[in-house]
């Protein structure tokens, strides 16, 4: 909380400004605005079809908003192609895990460093000295991240054979390998059991604190969002319903009506 509060006064790291997305005649997002400050864990909640994933896909440049703007450190990201989002410090994980199934854990995480390294096919084929140096750097970094996320034992295992929970950690490791400033997590608790969800919550907080990241958490699991988020944005039918601390949002009558059903939940 303290980090986030300190940052409140400064300009936002990421600003979503009046973003609308229209598919055919359907308005998936309608003028949504919010700010993300450095060091924050921002929870984005809402019932199915609220527009969470649409917004997420705008941030990762898979969808182009019909109007509005998204600013990263004051600069619009809407002119960037999807593959040039990682280099400005936006990393992501996927809802149902999108790893490279035939590659080892280590190679998956190595791909994560792609945006932070450079090479060309001729130098790569000849394995020139500067390529070898760069690869040594990559390997050291990958090993550090694998150790950090307790994945050393499976470093050389092909990911398709790993349990789902482990695959989720590999995906997190891959995202961290790109040194993101903002980590976008798309329903990280999906498919995890009760205990795993709380371990994950601690891990997200630990990553934010120790690796100085800002986290956008799109999540169905209310318990997780309410326990780790500093700030919550609630969407419904493509509109922002409420915004504030977890307690404020939880107490908001509109949110209760749309999402929580009754006060007891």
């Amino acid at each position: 909380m303290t980090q986030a509060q300190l940052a409140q006064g400064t300009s936002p790291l990421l600003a979503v400004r009046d973003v609308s997305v229209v598919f055919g005649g359907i308005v998936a997002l309608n003028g949504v605005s919010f700010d993300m400050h450095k060091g924050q864990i921002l929870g984005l909640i809402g019932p199915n079809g609220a527009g969470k994933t649409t917004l997420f896909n705008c941030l990762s440049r898979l969808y182009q908003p019909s109007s509005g703007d998204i600013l990263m450190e004051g600069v619009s990201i809407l002119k960037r192609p999807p593959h040039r989002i990682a280099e400005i410090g936006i990393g992501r994980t996927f809802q149902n895990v999108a790893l490279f199934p035939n590659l080892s854990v280590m190679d998956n995480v190595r791909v994560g460093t792609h945006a932070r390294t450079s090479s060309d096919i001729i130098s790569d084929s000849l394995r020139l000295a500067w390529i070898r140096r760069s690869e040594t750097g990559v390997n050291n970094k990958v090993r550090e991240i694998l150790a950090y996320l307790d994945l050393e034992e499976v470093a050389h295992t092909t990911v398709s054979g790993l349990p789902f929970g482990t695959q989720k950690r590999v995906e997190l490791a891959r995202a961290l390998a790109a040194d993101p400033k903002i980590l976008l997590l798309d329903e990280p608790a999906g498919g995890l059991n009760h205990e795993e969800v709380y371990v994950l919550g601690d891990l997200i907080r630990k990553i934010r604190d120790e690796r100085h990241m800002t986290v956008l958490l799109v999540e169905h699991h209310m318990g997780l969002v309410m326990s780790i988020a500093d700030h919550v944005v609630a969407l419904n039918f493509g509109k922002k319903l409420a915004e504030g601390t977890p307690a404020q949002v939880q107490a908001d009558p509109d949110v209760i009506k749309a999402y929580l059903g009754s006060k007891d939940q």
Partner: protein
Amino acid sequence: MSAAEDVVAEGNETVEAVPKRAMTLGTGTSVVVLLLLLIVPVFAKNFVIFQLTQLLYLGLAVLALNILTGGSGQFSLGQSAFYGIGAYITAVMMEQFNIPYFLCLPVAGVLCFGAGFLFGQPALRLSGVYLALATFALATAMPQLLKLNFLEPWTGGVQGLVVTKPDAPFGLKISQDMWLYYFTLVVVLAIYIFSVNLLRSRSGRAFMAIRDNEIAASAMGVNVALYKTLAFGVSAGITGVAGGLSAIAVQFVAPDSFTITLAIQLFLGMVVGGVGWLPGSIVGAAFIIFVPNIAEGISKGLSGAVFGVLLFLVIYLVPHGARQLAIMGQQLAGRLRKS
């Protein structure tokens, strides 16, 4: 691509899944194979040496397809077109412009890289079977393009072009066939090593990331369009060099040597060798060169049918090709060592 996926998934307990191992041979095996490739021709007749040369350059063409399909996950039934372009560039440069053969090959490689890179642009919009169809169209068009009238002064039209076999240099007292074999061996080994390096590098990882999941690759900063076309270019470039080597070895190029049949043979070689496993390329090449002869030895009249049966047996018994045999061999060796 499911075949390649299965292999890797299954192989994960047996082969130590160190990426290098998954793609190459162990040091011991490499030394044995290299020694065999160096020594066997010394004791072989000229015709056998010619066949071994053929094995090397067809293996190179299979390797090129393996980089494209096994590496980046794109299908191609159009490899015969790049092979033909490479062969013709080499033949025309050697015969019409008297340029030494060893200078023609890099030119063939670079021009075919360009052709593949350009062809990769429209192919970006296609995937899977549709890409296979587009490349099929390229393969079908190529023989007729090579017959075009206005190219005839250089290409010799339907008649084709005879290529002079180079002599061994530096006054070496070895036959032309033997010299050509060792020359081909050096070129093929060099390209093999570069290819292994490439697939193990940042670029190679980008290829494989695209093969496995394009959206995730893009989110990691991989320029999917660029790497897909690069894979096409690299594959076409290597295929062009293989075609050039074939023109020198066969001493003849004609449009109808580069039909869709050749493309399908290369595809077959890749599957038999093991998709995505580079050393398998030479096994695949051996299959497409020698198995038709074996089939003919069994039955002259029904050689095609016998070939079909043999192919069917291979697919049935070792669906993942030579790679599967290699993994089985490794397991067996491990068990013998333990007992």
